[in-house]
């Protein structure tokens, strides 16, 4: 039951883009085509899950025992930057085709605030998910991160689909580009607000 709640809550109710405003820059940047949008979502999904696993362990076994919580921000961003670099090198060797497909999106993920945001959230915030409010365990944290990144992918793919249709329309001059995109996201976010009834 708790697992189901974590998944539904992370994907729909607290959607990372449409309710938490994380990772907006790549969201607006690469969502004009469906294919690039799904590539980016896959890369983000991979990095968020891995980064949360590593930073969670780092926080629990290194920062907390030595009373170094104030170094969280610096330590996490370094870990994420190193991790992205590593993922890039490994992918290049193991699966050149996937590496090609993800292309420039991989290095960009370092500065995607969704990654750092989720990593910080799972170690500092208390969650409920149908239980009394508690700090997340490792399994829950990783599951939450994975589900959150699925939510990112969902929002991205939905929006890319909308934008492909939008490109064919005659939009007034001052609305062209980002303004109309933002207004569209606004309406999409309104639709997602409906999910908060589930929680």
């Amino acid at each position, binding site marked *: 039951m708790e697992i189901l709640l974590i998944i539904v809550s992370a994907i729909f109710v607290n959607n990372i883009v449409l309710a938490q405003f994380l990772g907006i*820059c790549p969201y607006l940047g690469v969502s004009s085509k469906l294919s690039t949008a799904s590539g980016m979502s896959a890369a983000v999904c991979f990095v968020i899950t891995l980064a949360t696993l590593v930073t969670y362990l780092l926080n629990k076994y290194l920062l907390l025992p030595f009373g170094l919580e104030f170094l*969280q921000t610096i330590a996490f961003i370094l870990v994420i930057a190193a991790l992205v670099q590593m993922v890039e090198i490994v992918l290049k060797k193991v699966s050149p085709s996937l590496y090609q497909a993800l292309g420039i999106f991989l290095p960009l993920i370092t*500065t995607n605030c969704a990654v750092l945001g989720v990593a910080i959230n799972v170690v500092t915030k208390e969650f409920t998910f149908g239980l009394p409010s508690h700090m997340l365990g490792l399994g829950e944290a990783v599951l939450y991160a994975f589900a959150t990144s699925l939510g990112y992918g969902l929002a991205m793919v939905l929006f890319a689909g909308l934008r492909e249709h939008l490109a064919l329309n005659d939009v007034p*001059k001052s609305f062209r580009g980002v303004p*109309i995109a*933002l207004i569209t*996201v606004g309406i999409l976010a309104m639709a997602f607000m409906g999910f908060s009834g589930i929680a």
Partner: protein
Amino acid sequence: MEDKTMSKFQLITKGLVKDNPTFVLLLGMCPTLATTTSAVNGLSMGLATLFVLVLSNMAISAIAPVVPDKVHIPVYIVVIATFVTILQLLMQAFTPGIYATLGLFIPLIVVNCIVLGRAEAFASKHSVGDSALDGLGVGLGFTLSLTVIGLVREILGSGSAFGWKFLPGDGMLAFVMAPGAFLVLGYLMVLFNKYLAKK
């Protein structure tokens, strides 16, 4: 991109309209959307970013000549993360209320592309004094846009301005929540485009 003839005064004012980080350059979207639930919140987020921008610009312009080119991005990120940590500790000590409201978005200043963008595009090539002024200008532009967005959302969403309530009732709640952020930013951008097109 900046030419040598730009006066000290222009360094500060260019961030307000011509190179406005939010409406023209579209940088730092996540904090822009997430923290502008009221004018005061927008203002505090803007000032927090301003603090980091000025200090990191100064530090980076001072160390830029001795940083090897290959590792300059990681070095800049560490410098920025250091100032963000200082800001976090200062805010926890002196303004715990605001720190709690802005929450996650204070540590996320590390991945705000405005800060790294200015470090890369301006501070690494200019003197310490000019970099401080540039940070101040861009920071003020960011603060101004966040305050305006916050003000519009607060007026529409809760019928008050800077906490001063002048309309009875609750206002349109959607504007304080996620969809309102996207819609208000989208429509303000349209107005900004119209204004720039007229000039």
